């Protein structure tokens, strides 16, 4: 109805859409032989984590604070985008001795 405003909104949306991929990175976290590597990783909100499970068993990446809980089937890769900042301790629910830390900058 208001072409000027509509265009401005579109422009903002486009900028927003551009802004995220321009800075977003993809970080690979590998689960192999019952261990998570790297055990300490840093990323930013908007980044994608690629969870790679090389084992013949299912694993999970479960945040202690409840921020995420991803199940990765054997020999599968799952991608998830980080939406919240914080230092997150996470572990595998099936193998609680698999532990790691992900630091997510805003």
């Amino acid at each position, binding site marked *: 109805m208001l072409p000027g405003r509509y265009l401005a909104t579109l422009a903002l949306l486009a900028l927003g859409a551009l802004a995220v991929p321009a800075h977003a990175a993809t970080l690979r976290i590998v689960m192999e032989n019952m261990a998570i590597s790297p055990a300490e990783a840093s990323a930013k909100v908007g980044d994608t984590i690629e969870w790679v499970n090389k084992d013949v*068993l299912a694993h999970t990446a479960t945040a202690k604070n409840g921020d995420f809980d991803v199940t990765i089937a054997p020999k599968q890769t799952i991608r998830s985008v980080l939406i919240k900042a914080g230092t997150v301790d996470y572990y595998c*629910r099936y*193998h609680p001795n698999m532990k790691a830390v992900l630091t997510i900058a805003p």
Partner: protein
Amino acid sequence: MFVRLSIAVAALSVLTGAALAQGAKLTDPQIAHIAYTAGVIDINAAKQAETKASNKDVKAFAKDMARDHEAVNKQALDLVKKLKVTPEDNDTSKALSKQAADKLAELGKLKGAAYDKAYIDNEVAYHKTVNTALETQLIPSASNPELKSLLQTGLKIFQGHQQHAEHVAAGMK
């Protein structure tokens, strides 16, 4: 404490002595049978625990054991099929199965917290024994590189299970 410790040590040396520490070199078909049997034993123990355990960590652990050992055994079956190896029953497998059946019957008589404790303690001891056997006997004896590699993967997984069991056991004291 001392009593329990010495019983555990005695049980372990019986298991390793009678069932696993035989001098003769094992063949690949025998090794495959032993590894598969060891998995089945832990799956059966887990199935019993899933119905009998009351502690939620013990129940969750049992579920993890059933899931993982089934996955590893499926891997083992796929491999023997691919290698056209027929797993061969042997004295070690027989002794393991016999001991496991006795243990299952013994655990079956227990209830509640006593059952939980006995199951998890046995899981610690059992994984320790199996890991030692893998490291000192099964892996060094395996000739086929793919079988060796599967056993090595199994060892990593079962070491994880041992730590997990120790952790659950420590949390119950």
